[in-house]
């Protein structure tokens, strides 16, 4: 009986998946009712799934669970009661008249988030990228490579020029020219032109990566559609 149930739920799932895939693919012919239905189902399901995951993975194990199994320690009580009070204040954001009570909590989240992001950007992105740029000219690393030294130096210089010119492209400080309209200095403008070339190359490579990934998904979906139709008509 359970085998029959499993087969029927799987079959139902395949049919639902097929219908939803066709709904989304109908966008190829322009925006339409089927596509909007598919998208709105997706929004609803995703919102529901997010709510369930938040409840089961964060709020229940980290807030409600420890409070219900409190060991009597005052320190632990303080550690638990503060996020509980702050959570209640944050929930008041739902009601427009009481939403200002949630602003201090939002300030706390924004402060913690901004500091984490700044710290992460410095330690996790900025310093490693600068170190990688410096290491390009490290004689020890160059000696350990099997490539010719002079070729490595040319390639490293090329990478450094690409990095610097790309960064300089985003330097938007300008002074008014004789006509009063803002203009960058001639040297900056020239280097920015080189930077624009490297940005076009980089975005071209990124575009190719995204396109290849989406083509793989497109092929996989068509494979699914064709295999379902073949199995329905026993071909």
């Amino acid at each position, binding site marked *: 009986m359970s085998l029959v149930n499993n087969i029927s739920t799987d079959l139902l799932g395949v049919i639902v998946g097929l219908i939803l895939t066709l709904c989304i693919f109908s966008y190829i012919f322009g925006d339409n009712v089927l596509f909007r239905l598919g998208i709105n189902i997706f929004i*609803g399901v995703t919102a529901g799934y997010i709510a369930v995951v938040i*409840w089961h993975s964060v709020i229940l194990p980290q807030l409600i669970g420890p409070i219900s199994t409190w060991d009597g320690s005052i320190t632990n009580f303080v550690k638990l009661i503060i996020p509980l009070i702050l959570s209640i204040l944050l929930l008041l954001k*739902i009601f427009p008249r009481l939403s200002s009570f949630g*602003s201090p909590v939002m300030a706390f989240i924004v402060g913690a988030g901004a500091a984490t992001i*700044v710290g992460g*950007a410095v330690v996790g992105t900025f310093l490693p990228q600068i170190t990688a*740029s410096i290491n390009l000219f490290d004689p020890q690393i160059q000696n350990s490579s099997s490539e010719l030294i002079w070729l490595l130096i040319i390639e490293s210089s090329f990478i450094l020029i690409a990095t610097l010119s790309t960064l300089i492209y985003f330097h938007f400080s300008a002074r008014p020219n004789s006509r009063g309209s803002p203009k960058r200095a001639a040297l900056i403008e020239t280097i920015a032109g080189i930077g624009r070339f490297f940005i076009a190359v980089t975005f071209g490579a990124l575009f*190719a990566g*995204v396109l290849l990934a989406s083509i793989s998904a497109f092929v996989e*979906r068509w494979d699914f559609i064709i295999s379902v139709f073949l199995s329905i008509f026993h071909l």
Partner: protein
Amino acid sequence: MVNLSAKQILLISITAVTGIVILSGYFIDDPVLINLRAIILQWTIILAAVALLVGVINLISVHFSKVITRKRSSIYSLVILVSFFITLIVGALYGPTNHLSLWIFNYVQLPIETSLLGITAVILILAAIRMLNRRPNTLSIIFLFVAVIIMVGTVSIPWLEPSLLAEARDWILRIPVTGGARGIIIGIALGTIATGLRVLMGADRPYEN
């Protein structure tokens, strides 16, 4: 001189103190500070989850009011509400890893996500053709030329010399793309640091809205 109300000063102080404690934990090796930072981060995780829940409740209340007032295209809002409550009830009763929740994930969410990624291919190809049509300049041609080299170098085409294209692709990715991407990443990091510091100093106050 900017005039700030008492409430604004309080909010800026909360942001600044929280931020300074967390940032200090990155650079000062003090056990008390590291412990305090860990507690604040623990609270932030809980509060961020509650904030996400507030966002979901807000989304549902907006669509609920659309359905009640029978605004134009409220049928789509009804679809959102029905699919939301089915997922929520199944997840609340059986948990997110139960086979019923996974059925919804595998047969509703996954096909839609994959199909959306799939039609991105069509949209990207159309956008590339449109760009070449409207802006046929040197940079557009370089952009598309590199994209074609990378794609053709990645897949194997029988009538083309594979090693030459693969070598061209590898060189592009290793030299100009590494340099360009590094410049963009450092630029993003600098922008992130500047924006984060503006928020911590109270120049930008996104929590006021």
